[in-house]
C-alpha cells in the first residue's frame, strides 16, 4: 500500500522536488545563446538574420518536449530502452536512403520543410540503451573485456553508421559517452591497459584507412593553423583572432569586427563561441564556461543522488553528452583541439541539436525529481514494519 504522498510523487510533479538549479542554469545558457546568435547573424547574409528567431522556436519546442520527457517516469524509458535504440538505428539507416547531401555528407532527413538529423537523437537513445544494459547487469565486481562486449556493440553500431555519413564529430561523441559510462563501472586494470594499448595501434590505422582527406586536413591544420591562412587554416586562425581580440571585457555586443566583417565562418553553427568571446571578452567567457562547468557538475550530482542504476547512468550519460560537446567545441574554437564539427550545446543554431540537448535536460530533470523515490519493494517492506 502506498501513501498518498508517495503516489503523488510517483505520478505527478511535486513542486518541492523540481530542480530549479538545473532549470535556471539551462535557461541562462539558452538565453545567452539566443542573444549571441542575434549578434552572430546580425550582419551576415540576409538569409541568416532570422536564425535566432528559429532558435527561439526550437528552444520553446524543446522546452515543451523536455517537460513531457521529464514528467514521464524514467522507468518507462528503461522498459522501452532497446526499442527506442532500435528506432534510432532505423532512422540512421534511413539517412542513407532519404538523406540530403550537404557539404559532402548526408546527415539529414527532410520532414516537410525541416531537416531532421537522426544522429543527434541517437546520442540520447544510446545513453538510454547503455543505462538499461548496466541497470540489467548489476554486478559489483570488476568487469573484464568480455563484459564490455555487449555495451561496446551497442555503441559501435550507431557510431559506424554515423561515421559512414560521414560525421566524425558525432561518432567521437558516441565513443566518448561510451567511455565515460564505462568509467562509471569498475573495470579490471588489465582490461583498461589492453584498451589503451590497442587504441594506440588502431589510431594510426584509422588515420590511414578511415579518415577522409578533409578530416585529415583539419588535423594537420590544427597542428599549424598559421601555415595556410587563406586555405584550410582560415577558420582556426580567424576564430583565434576573434577570441583574442575580445581582451578582458570584449568589444561590446555586436561590435566584434571579426564577426561583423565576416572573418568568422560558420559563426552560427560551429563558431558562435568566437563571436561571444569577441563581444564579451574574458569576463563573459568566464561566466559562460563556468555555467557549462556547473551544468556538468550538477549532472554528476544528480547521478549521485539517483536512486537506481538506470537513473544514475542516464544522468551521467547526459552530463557526458553536454561535457564532451562543450569541451570539443570550446577546444576547437580556442585552438586546443582540431576543428571537428561539434556544436556548442544551446549556443549553436540548429533544431536537432537544440531538441537533443533540451530532451537530455528533460531526462536530467526527470532523474533529479525522482531522487526521493523509494523502490516499491523496499517501501513495502519498510512500511510493513510498522
Amino acid at each position, binding site marked *: 500500500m502506498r501513501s498518498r504522498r508517495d503516489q503523488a510523487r510517483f505520478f505527478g510533479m511535486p513542486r518541492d522536488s523540481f530542480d530549479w538549479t538545473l532549470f535556471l542554469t539551462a535557461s541562462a545558457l539558452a538565453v545567452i545563446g539566443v542573444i549571441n546568435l542575434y549578434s552572430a547573424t546580425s550582419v551576415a547574409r540576409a538569409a541568416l538574420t532570422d536564425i535566432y528567431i528559429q532558435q527561439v522556436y526550437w528552444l520553446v519546442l524543446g522546452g515543451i518536449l523536455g517537460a513531457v520527457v521529464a514528467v514521464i517516469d524514467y522507468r518507462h524509458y528503461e522498459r522501452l530502452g532497446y526499442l527506442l535504440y532500435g528506432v534510432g538505428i532505423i532512422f540512421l539507416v534511413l539517412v542513407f536512403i532519404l538523406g540530403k547531401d550537404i557539404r559532402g555528407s548526408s546527415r539529414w532527413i527532410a520532414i516537410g520543410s525541416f531537416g531532421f538529423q537522426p544522429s543527434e537523437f541517437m546520442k540520447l537513445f544510446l545513453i538510454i540503451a547503455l543505462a538499461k544494459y548496466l541497470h540489467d547487469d548489476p554486478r559489483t565486481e570488476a568487469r573484464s573485456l568480455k563484459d564490455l562486449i555487449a555495451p561496446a556493440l551497442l555503441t559501435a553500431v550507431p557510431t559506424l553508421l554515423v561515421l559512414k555519413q560521414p560525421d566524425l564529430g558525432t561518432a567521437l561523441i558516441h565513443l566518448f559517452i561510451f567511455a565515460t559510462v564505462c568509467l562509471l563501472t569498475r573495470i579490471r586494470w588489465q582490461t583498461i591497459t589492453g584498451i589503451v594499448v590497442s587504441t594506440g595501434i588502431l589510431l594510426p590505422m584509422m588515420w590511414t584507412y578511415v579518415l577522409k582527406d578533409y578530416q585529415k586536413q583539419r588535423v594537420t591544420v590544427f597542428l599549424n593553423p598559421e601555415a595556410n591562412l587563406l586555405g584550410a587554416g582560415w577558420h582556426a586562425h580567424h576564430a583565434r583572432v576573434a577570441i583574442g581580440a575580445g581582451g578582458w571585457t570584449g568589444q561590446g555586443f555586436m561590435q566584434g569586427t571579426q564577426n561583423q*566583417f565576416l572573418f568568422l565562418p560558420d559563426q552560427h553553427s560551429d563558431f558562435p563561441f568566437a563571436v561571444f568571446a569577441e563581444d564579451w571578452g574574458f569576463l563573459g567567457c568566464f561566466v559562460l564556461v563556468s555555467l557549462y562547468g556547473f551544468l556538468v557538475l550538477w549532472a554528476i550530482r544528480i547521478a549521485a543522488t539517483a536512486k537506481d542504476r538506470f537513473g544514475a547512468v542516464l544522468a551521467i550519460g547526459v552530463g557526458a553528452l553536454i561535457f564532451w560537446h562543450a569541451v570539443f567545441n570550446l577546444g576547437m574554437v580556442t585552438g586546443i583541439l582540431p576543428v571537428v564539427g561539434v556544436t556548442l550545446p544551446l549556443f549553436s543554431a540548429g533544431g536537432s541539436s537544440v531538441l537533443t540537448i533540451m530532451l537530455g535536460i528533460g531526462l536530467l530533470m526527470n532523474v533529479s525529481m525522482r531522487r526521493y523515490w523509494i523502490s516499491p519493494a523496499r517501501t513495502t517492506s519498510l512500511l510493513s514494519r510498522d
Partner: protein
Amino acid sequence: MSNLLVPRTDVSEFRKRYRWLALVAFIAFSIVLGRLFQLQVLRGADYAQIAHENVIRRVTLPTTRGIVRDSQGRVLASNRSSFNVLLVPGRVMPSARPSRRSRPGVEEHDSFTRIADTLRLNPDERQRLATRIRDACITDEDRSPCWRPILVREDLSRDIVAEIKQHAAEMTGASVVSQPVRYYPYKNQAAHLLGYTSEIDAETLAKYRPPGSDQLSSEERQKLNPLGYEPGDIVGATGVERSWESYLRGQRGWEKRVVDARGRYRTGPEADRLLDAPSRQEPLPGRDLRLTIDMELEQSVQRAMRAHVSGAIVVVDVRTGRLLALYSKPDFDPNDLAGGSGKDRIREAFGKLATDPLRPMLDKTMSGVFHPGSTFKPFSALAALEDKILSPFDKERCDGYLSFGRRIFRCAHVHGRVDMREALAESCNIYFYKLAESVGMDRIARIATEFGLGQKTGIGVNPEAAGRIPTRSWYALRYKGQFRIGFTLNTSIGQGATTVTPLQLALAYAALGNGGTVFSPQLVRAVETSDGSVVQDFPPRVRQKAKIAPENLARISDALYAVVNEDKGTAYPVRDRTLEVAGKTGTAQTGYVNPGTDDPKKAWYLSRDHAWFAAYSPAKAPEIAVVVLVEHGGSGPTVAAPIAMQVIKEYHRLAAARASKLAGSNAKKPDPKDAKDSKDSAGKRPPAPQPAGDSDPSPRDPPPPDPNGLPSWLSDPNDEPASEPVDEPRDEP
C-alpha cells in the same frame, strides 16, 4: 525521513567514481579557461591588433603625372583617360558556375552575348573569352577566380563606353574603369626629346623593391623606394620623360578604408569608428615642366626636313645654350608606345621600330656620332691662328690633289692659290692638308676640345654619345703601326677618326658666334606646379670658355660669313638675301665599304656622303646656331644648306611676329589660331613629295610594307637614280 534510510546497494558500484568524474570535468573546463586567459588577456593586445589590421586596408590614391609644355606654353605631353572593360566571370556567365548548375531556376541570366556584341568581338575572340570565363568558374567559392575581374578590352572608344554605361542593366558583371594614359598631342614631333612612358620593368622594379623588402619597416622601404614604385607603374622610358621622372611622377596618397573579409568596402559610422588617424594622405601631383623648345619652330624644322629620310637638326640659342629645336629623323609616335591601347599594340609598334634600318628610336642629335667633314675646318684654322703657326694671309696652291708618298689626297676643285679665308669659303681641302702638316694633330684636337667637341655635353636626356677628337696618343694606343701623317690630314677636314654629335657641333658653332662661350645645352627651362607657379627656374649655364684670342675668332667669323655671302662661297648659291647667315658646309664621307652582302641599292644609299650645314644667324649679332645633318644626303651645300636657311628664316619670322605682337598690344592675348594659320601659309612650299608615313593623317597606321622587303626610301623616285656613278668625287666639292 523514512526514505533516507533506504539502502542504495544497487548504485554503490558508481559511488567512488563521481568524485573523479567531477574532478575531470573541473580540470577540463579549467584548461579551457586557462587557454582563454592566455588568448584574451595575455595576448589580447596582439590579437586586437591583428583583428584591426584585418578590417583596415590602405587604398592608394593615384597621382597625376606632370605636364610638359614648350617655351610658349603649348602642351607637349599630358594625360588622358583610357577606358578599360573588366568582366567578373561569375556574373557575366552564371551558367558556367557549378553551384548555379546544381540549382537551376535562379533568375540570373548570362550577359555574355550582349557584352561581346557591344565590344564588337569577332567569333574567335568571343570563343577565347568564353573559354577563359569557364576556366575561371570551375569553382565558385568565395575566393575563386570566378569572382575576380578580368581585363578584356583596353582603350575603348567613347561610343562603346557610352553604350556600356547606358545599358548597364543588361550587362551584368561588366564594368568600365578609366586609367590615365600619357598623351602626346604633337605625336611624332619632338618625340625623341620628349621620350615616352611605359610600364616599369621587373629589373628596375627590383632595384627599388629588392626581394625581401616587404619585411622591412616602412621607413626603410621609403628610403629604398622614395618615389613609391609598384608593379604596373608607368614610368618614363626615354627622353625628358625618363630623365625628369622624379619631378613628373608625383607622389601617391593613401586612404584607410574599412573592408570585410570579402574585400568589400564598408562605410557608415560603425566603420568610421574603426579608422585611426591619420586616415588619409593626399596625393601630390607631379611637377610640370617648361621646355626651351619652341614647338612652332620644331614643326618648321620637321617640315624643312621633309624631303629626306634620315638626319638631325639642332637649333640652339647662341646667347644661352637653350635648345629651341631638336629634331631627329626618322621619328616615331610616342602615343603608340605609351600604352593605353593595350600591350599587344605596344609590342607591335616596338617591333616595327626596332627592325627599321634607319633606326627611328635613335636620337641622332645626341646619341648618333658622325664625321663632321668640312664643318670641322674652322677649328683647324683656329688652331693654326692661335699657335701662330701660319699667317692667315699665307697662300697655298691647290692643284686639286696632293700626294703624300704613295697616297693621293684630293680636293673637289682646283682652287688655285687660296689664303685661309678663301680656303674656308671655298672649302679647299689642299689648304687644310698643308695647314695640318705644320699645325699637327694635337693642336687641332686642343682647339676642338676647347669648343666642347668630342665630349658629352651633359644634356642628360637621352644616352649621349661622346664622339671623338683623335690625338696622337689616341692613335698610338689604337694603331700598332707607325703614325702616319695622313691621320692628321684627315683630322683637319673632319674625317678619319673624328666624330661629333650634331648637338656638340651646334654648341661649338654657337661658341664661334658668341665669342667663345660654350654653354651647357638646356632643354628644361623651369619646373612649375600644376597651377603654373614656378618652382625652380634654370638659368643658362656656361660649360667652358674657349681660350681663343678675339681677333682670331673674328677672322674665322669673317670667313664663315664669306661662305654664305661671297660669290665664291660654297653656300652662296643657296643664300637668302633677307637673312644674315654665317656658316660652313660639309660633305662628310662615311667610309662605308660594301661587305659584299648588302643589297646594291642599300649599298648605294649607305655609301653616299652625309650632308652638313652648321651656321649661326644673324652673322654680326648671332641669336641662334643651327646644325643640319642629312644622313647620306649627299652634298652639304646643295642638300643641307637650304634646309638650314629655311629654318633660320622661320626663326626670324617667328621672332619678328612675337616681337610685333608684344609691341602691338599687350592687352590682346596671343591667339594660337592666328599663329597656326600664318605658320601654315609660310610652310606651303614643300619642295618635294614626302617620304611615306611622314604626313600620314593617322600616324598609327603603318606605312605599306615593301614587297621586296626593302625599306621604301630605297626606291623613292625623287631620290637620285641608283645608276649614278659610285665613284663620284670623294672629297669636298
